[in-house]
């Protein structure tokens, strides 16, 4: 049992950047935009946070800025020039990884601590609950923000006109256009939102999780977040649950090693991906936005 509390803490900590990125990606995919550049946004955010890490707030602001910088390029190519989302996204991921690696190495470094890491906020009383207290109520602010975003985004998507408009764009841009919705504007906002949250996730990675920047430290989290969106069936609550599953599986590797179970942790790490594939098979058709990854034909406003 003594392993349970640190495991839960590690799971929540690991899940935080994944959830941040996945919630943003959910919004963008619901508008029909598959942001494959998310991985690039995360590493850009991570690097920006590292550069501006004098104070956590400045670090997070820079992280969002870093993500948005790639997001603007993505929007230019995908929404305005209407180029293929997959190829542009893949290129931007390469760009983000290459650029941050180049800048970082140009400073002659391979790994560096940030000036100030973000402290954990202990919620009084609640954080002393046995087993789950530390995991749920002694986390950095970014974790609380990620959790808070889930109901907020859900409410926005399902209970507001803007959310309805966004989902309409993802399902049928022509119908949305005919109903007077500005398709392009919606897609721009949605894609930028995912880029900004991707940057924020990178910031959380540096400031709250690792306390340091390292080359390629995003380590596929952007692609993971895309998997989480699919596993969560493009719904905020499902996405939150899926992020918890992925976070737990990633944290489980430490437990498996510590307990000396006869299972290789590489096999444990495979579980969430296999689970995602199974989920896509079982529920895939119908739950993905109809226009995901495709550009609208006529809607040009």
């Amino acid at each position, binding site marked *: 049992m003594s392993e349970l509390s640190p495991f839960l803490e590690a799971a929540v900590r690991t899940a935080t950047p994944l959830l941040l990125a996945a919630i943003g990606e959910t919004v963008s995919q619901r508008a029909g935009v598959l942001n494959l550049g998310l991985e690039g946004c995360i590493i850009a955010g991570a690097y920006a946070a590292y550069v501006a890490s004098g104070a956590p707030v400045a670090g997070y602001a820079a992280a969002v800025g870093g993500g948005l910088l790639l997001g603007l390029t993505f929007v230019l190519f995908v929404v305005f020039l209407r180029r293929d989302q997959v*190829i*542009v996204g893949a290129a931007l991921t390469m760009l983000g990884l*290459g650029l941050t690696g180049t800048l970082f190495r140009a400073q002659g470094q391979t790994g560096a601590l940030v000036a100030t890491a973000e402290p954990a906020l202990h919620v009084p009383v609640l954080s002393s609950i046995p087993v789950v207290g530390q995991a749920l109520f002694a986390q950095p602010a970014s974790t609380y923000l990620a959790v808070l975003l889930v109901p907020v985004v859900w409410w926005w998507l399902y209970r507001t006109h803007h959310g309805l408009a966004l989902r309409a764009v993802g399902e049928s841009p022509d119908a949305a256009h005919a109903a007077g919705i500005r398709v392009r504007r919606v897609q721009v906002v949605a894609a930028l939102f995912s880029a900004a949250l991707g940057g924020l996730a990178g910031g959380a990675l540096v400031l709250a999780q690792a306390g340091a920047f390292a*080359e390629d430290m995003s380590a596929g989290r952007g692609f993971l977040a*895309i998997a989480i969106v699919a596993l969560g069936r493009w719904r905020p609550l499902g996405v939150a649950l899926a992020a918890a599953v992925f976070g737990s599986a990633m944290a489980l590797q430490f437990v498996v090693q510590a307990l000396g179970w006869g299972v290789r942790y*590489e096999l444990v790490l495979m579980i969430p991906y296999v689970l995602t*594939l199974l989920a896509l098979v079982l529920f895939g058709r119908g739950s993905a936005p109809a226009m995901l990854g*495709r550009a609208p034909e006529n809607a040009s406003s």
Partner: protein
Amino acid sequence: MSPRARNAFLVVAAVAVAALSFWALAPEAAVAFWNGSIGSRNALLSGTLVRAIPLAIIGTGLAIAFRAGVFNIGGEGQLMLGAVAATLVALRGDAGALTAPLALLAATAAGALWAGIAGVLRARFGVLEVISTIMLNFVAMNLVSYLVRGPMQEPSRIYPQSAAIADVAQLPRLAPDVRLHIGLVIVLGVCAGAWWFTSHTAAGFRQRATGSAPIAARIAGGIDVSRVALGAMLMSGALAGLAGGIEVTGVTFALYEHISPGYGFSAIAVAVLARLNPIAVLPSALLFATLETGALGMQRDAGVPSTFAAVLEAAAILAIVATHGWFRDAAPRPRAAESA
């Protein structure tokens, strides 16, 4: 000038201008780039050309897939499965001179099988192949990590790698003192075959039709588009698997965790720069291989970060994508001149 000649000219001119200004601005780095990539017999025949082989093979497969409107992002995972299969066959090594060809055959089949999972998920369950191939990349990476530390680890059980394959299972080298191997000939065959297939066979035409106008292909052309897409997915997976097999039997001679420095992703850039033309994939792969070995040379001799190669690759993709209306929307559209 034909549009094709004009495009080739533009790319060559852009590369020349970039190279000259690079030399003028940073002569030391430029010399390091030259020495590391194509400036010496050794750099060219043991580095750059060896690296161009997997890029060209995977790039050819991706060109076929992208043309058919199939977005296979899983080249990396398919390469790894091919490497695993080739290693398994090569380590048995009891087929004499046939061992290497059998290993490559197994690699091709394994790559096709791995891609086939994503292909079937798309055809039967409507699962986006972009997402499923990314998942399969992660599964493949963890699978290889597990194998080289578990059932396939070398006998002394110290290093995370498989045992080395026997000499008989290795691809012959083109000259005794260089690392360049017979894979170069395989590449030429693959590209020529792919070109002939896409432009001179009915099946190739059905793929292009499916990619450029799926609805018209289905209704007016009577094409079973989901079957055609599955075929394109299998072909691209087979080629990525073959590339993995060639890496094991021609370069590394064992299965490693990091057997690929991202060939599956760089190959996307290769295919896009070649504008999805299997013949143009050859110079495109050569260019990117030069870029990558040159960048490694700059890192070694001039302290320039080798990650800069990725920046240039990304910039090349964006430049091509921006200037060619071809990469509009989800499906590549053949230009009027080529659609006949």
